[in-house]
């Protein structure tokens, strides 16, 4: 277990705002093997994106700060690196793509300029060579007529195309790890499937690891090897995709799984988890899911221990056996 690509160990990222401290990420740990995909799942505001940005050390400081923890990437702690070394990691070794392909590209530059920039920032190559590579990349992400598309501006492309361009930019320097922050949320369902398929292909081809951040368990089922379910800045359940989908041992995960709409069902109503995500600056005592949980008992208020269900499968619930 020593050759993990990335090992995040009890990461703590807080935001110190005027209305109080927001504990966005509170002791999150996980690891990723080379070529593996981790699905980071949870509702809005549970700390998924902050976790992703923390890995790249792009938390806006102040108000945010990484207080504690380790982020070991190929054995080196990213939190110890200088800003300059970090800049080489970003885009070179670890890349990230975002939810909004509509606004993630600079409107005043052509697609080609933006891709070649990423290449020349990291590699000592000439313009012509970078351009060649850009065409290759556009082919790789299956954009038709890449030679012409190089000269398109972002507003001339559809959402799906733009996300493909974003992916091309992100993988331009063959990163070892790609963090995809809800890359399909803003897209049509049909395009979603295509982008997922593309990400999976690229991952296999370059033996790239992937952190797939989403709130959609249906999407994660198609792509993830392992899944971490996050709630209120904590990982509530962690395990292989099979373990999570077949033997979920946490009431929160169960709630999420039940909320997936099923097409063939005769029921009129969609299952929902009652209540709302708690205010992150004012979290309940003990288990953070306690107020919404159908299995809640008074003991839940006393603490939030994590239990090992089986090899590689953990759940943060004292009643996991009964789930």
């Amino acid at each position, binding site marked *: 277990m020593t050759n993990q690509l990335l090992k995040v160990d009890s990461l703590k990222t807080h935001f110190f705002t005027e209305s109080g401290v927001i504990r966005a990420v509170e002791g999150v740990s996980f690891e990723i093997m080379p070529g593996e995909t981790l699905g980071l799942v949870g509702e809005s505001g549970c700390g998924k994106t902050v976790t992703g940005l923390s890995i*790249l050390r*792009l938390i806006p400081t*102040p108000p945010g700060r990484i207080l504690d923890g380790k982020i070991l990437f190929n054995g080196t702690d990213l939190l110890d690196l200088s800003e300059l070394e970090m*800049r*080489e*990691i*970003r*885009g*070179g070794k670890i*890349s*990230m793509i*975002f939810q*909004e392909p509509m*606004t*993630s*590209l*600079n*409107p*005043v*530059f052509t697609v080609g300029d933006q891709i070649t*920039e*990423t290449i020349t*920032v*990291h590699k000592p190559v000439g313009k012509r060579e970078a351009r060649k590579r850009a065409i290759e990349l556009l082919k790789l992400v299956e954009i038709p007529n890449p030679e012409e598309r190089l000269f398109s501006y972002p*507003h*001339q492309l559809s959402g799906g195309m733009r996300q493909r361009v*974003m992916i091309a*930019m*992100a993988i*331009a320097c063959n990163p070892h790890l790609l963090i995809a922050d809800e890359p399909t949320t803003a897209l049509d369902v049909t395009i979603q499937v295509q982008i997922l398929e593309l990400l999976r292909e690229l991952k296999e081809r370059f033996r790239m690891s992937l952190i797939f951040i989403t709130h959609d368990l249906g999407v994660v089922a198609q792509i993830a090897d392992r899944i971490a379910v996050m709630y209120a800045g904590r990982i509530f359940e962690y395990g292989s995709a099979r373990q999570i989908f077949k033997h979920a041992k946490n009431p929160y995960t169960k709630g999420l799984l039940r909320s997936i709409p099923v097409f063939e069902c005769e029921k009129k109503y969609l299952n929902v988890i009652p209540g709302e995500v708690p205010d992150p600056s004012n979290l309940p005592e003990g288990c953070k899911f306690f107020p919404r949980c159908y299995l809640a008992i008074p003991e839940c208020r006393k603490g939030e221990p994590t239990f090992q269900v089986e090899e590689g499968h953990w759940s943060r619930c004292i009643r996991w056996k009964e789930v």
Partner: protein
Amino acid sequence: MLKQRSLFWIYFKKNRLAIAGASTISVIFLIAIFAHLIAPFDPGETDIAIKLAPPSFKHPLGTDQLGRDVFSRMLYGSRVSLSVGLVAVSISLFIGIIVGSIAGYYGKMVDSVLMRFVDIMMCFPAFFLMLTIIALLGPKIHHVMIVIGATSWMGTARFVRAEFLSLRERDFVQAAKVLGVSDKRIIFRHMLPNALAPVFVTATIDMATAILIEASLSFLGFGVQPPAPSWGNILTEGRIYIFDAWWLTLFPGLAILIIVLSFNLFGEGLRDALDPRLREEGIK
């Protein structure tokens, strides 16, 4: 899909006044460039025999107290106005863009310090500051350019800062950071081109102000020194003869009025065409 640029043209062309301003500016630029070809006389050539002659076919704008052709002097004077305007505005843009973008991009302490400095600069009565500096440095045309530029960049800095504050939160800036692009590149390659439209508008209107200030300085004897012609000093020299030779003050005055007005109209037209909110009102 209509391109941004052609959309801009459609709206700009509708604004007749802006078109008039733009064409006048182009004509004046051509005159300034080809002044040595158009001018019928040497602007320094004196002929006491025909001093203070009223406008005629030979001297369309008359002659001055030394018998020099006012028309030729005016043509050469346009070079002064435009070059002072261009250089001064370039200096002010340069300082303003750098100060504004650094303040807006880094925010926090950097922003506070730089913006307080801008506030301090704005507190000075600019015109008296310029007079003082030129009195110390000596009245030369390049001193005038530098002084105007160095005292008029604050508006641009505030504009650029405001644009950067909003651009900084945009996804593509975050995306560039994620891909390891340096701060310098993000500021100048990614953010600045997105902030340039309103900067161009202020630059055009600043051009008018700079030309007006140069004329005022020359009028007071702190600008371009005679015998070199500038609209401002032609006006000053003519002031003594205002009751005997009206053409000495009327034409340079008119020229200043026209060029300042043209730049203002052009600038406002640019602003309206670039601002989508004003565009909609234009359609109604």
